[in-house]
């Protein structure tokens, strides 16, 4: 019944959510299949390291499974999962030792090594600066920015996922962007 109830916006079938909330592992497996890519990308955009992103994605799903019954059907399941994942990612980032972020250069660097390695390294440094700038934002601005741009949620979805009014979310986003502006202009100025 609920196996065919998927669409691009994520899990939306109440029967499936009910099954997941009842502890049905097969239903949760379908949720994992559907949402892993979105959650992984959000984690990767925050952490910059594929291995860390994989770990945190798995952690996020396990946390979600353990606390599935606390999910209220007010927002989307994807928004709820993204909220857990982004929070875990920022936690992992804060526990990380300061070191050279070589992983963030990643596969694009290796692919373009024969082309223009300097440009690739500079681009990787810019991405690192953006991640650091977002990570330095205070809450709730950081969460809103991360869900909006790294989780690719609409503002309405961010509002329902966080349980805040839409106008409050808009205000938080604007203030977050204002705080990012001086940090991001450094990145732009380097170009």
């Amino acid at each position, binding site marked *: 019944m609920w196996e065919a109830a998927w669409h691009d916006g994520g899990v939306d079938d109440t029967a499936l959510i009910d099954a997941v909330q009842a502890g049905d*592992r097969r239903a949760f497996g379908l949720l994992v299949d559907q949402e892993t890519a979105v959650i992984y990308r959000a984690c990767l955009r925050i952490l910059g390291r594929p291995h860390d992103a994989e770990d945190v994605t798995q952690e996020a799903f396990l946390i979600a499974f*353990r*606390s599935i019954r606390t999910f209220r059907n007010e927002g989307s399941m994807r928004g709820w999962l993204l909220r857990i994942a982004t929070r875990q990612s920022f936690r992992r980032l804060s526990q990380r030792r300061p070191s050279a972020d070589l992983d963030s250069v990643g596969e694009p660097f290796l692919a373009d090594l024969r082309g223009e390695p300097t440009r690739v390294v500079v681009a990787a440094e810019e991405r690192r600066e953006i991640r650091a700038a977002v990570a330095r934002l205070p809450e709730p601005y950081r969460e809103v920015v991360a869900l909006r741009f790294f989780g690719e949620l609409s503002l309405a979805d961010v509002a329902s996922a966080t349980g805040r009014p839409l106008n409050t979310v808009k205000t938080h986003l604007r203030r977050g962007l204002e705080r990012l502006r001086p940090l991001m202009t450094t990145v732009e100025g380097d170009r």
Partner: protein
Amino acid sequence: MNRRPPDPMDADLDRVVDELERYAAAERSEPPPDLASRIRAAVDVAPDPGPGWRVSLATLVRAWRAPARGLAMAAVLVVAVVGALAVGQLIDQARQPNVGTSPSPPVVSPTPSASPSPSPSPSPSPSPTITPSETPSESPTRPAPSPSESDEVETPEPSESDDSGSGGGGDNSGPGGGDD
């Protein structure tokens, strides 16, 4: 569309938005193909999800609703009875000083004042009276000093104890009872 002149601040924010969107577009790598199956395997061995604190709380409240109602009624009854008793006791205490304070202190005060005065007097008096009586029997040649010594020893102690016992007890009991 262009009713308002463009705000430079908004233009700056737009640049930040563009930058974030460009960054998100650049970081679009797909997860490893086996990641979902690894997660599913981890979920399979994970313990069953807990009921959640909201559900636990709701269950607890539901389970306690009927007994809690009875308990609440019993508690109200107990509080009412205890309150009535306390009020009655307060009223009694408020009435008591006007009716029975004056006779009670004189009845109570003499008994403690009398009890200390006899207790010191018997204990010293036997010991001096016995010792002089033995000494005269052994040596009758010295009758004069022994009675005088016994009188000197005997007389001050009872007289002092009697005076202090009665006077002190009365002085102490009087004002004490009056103050109370």
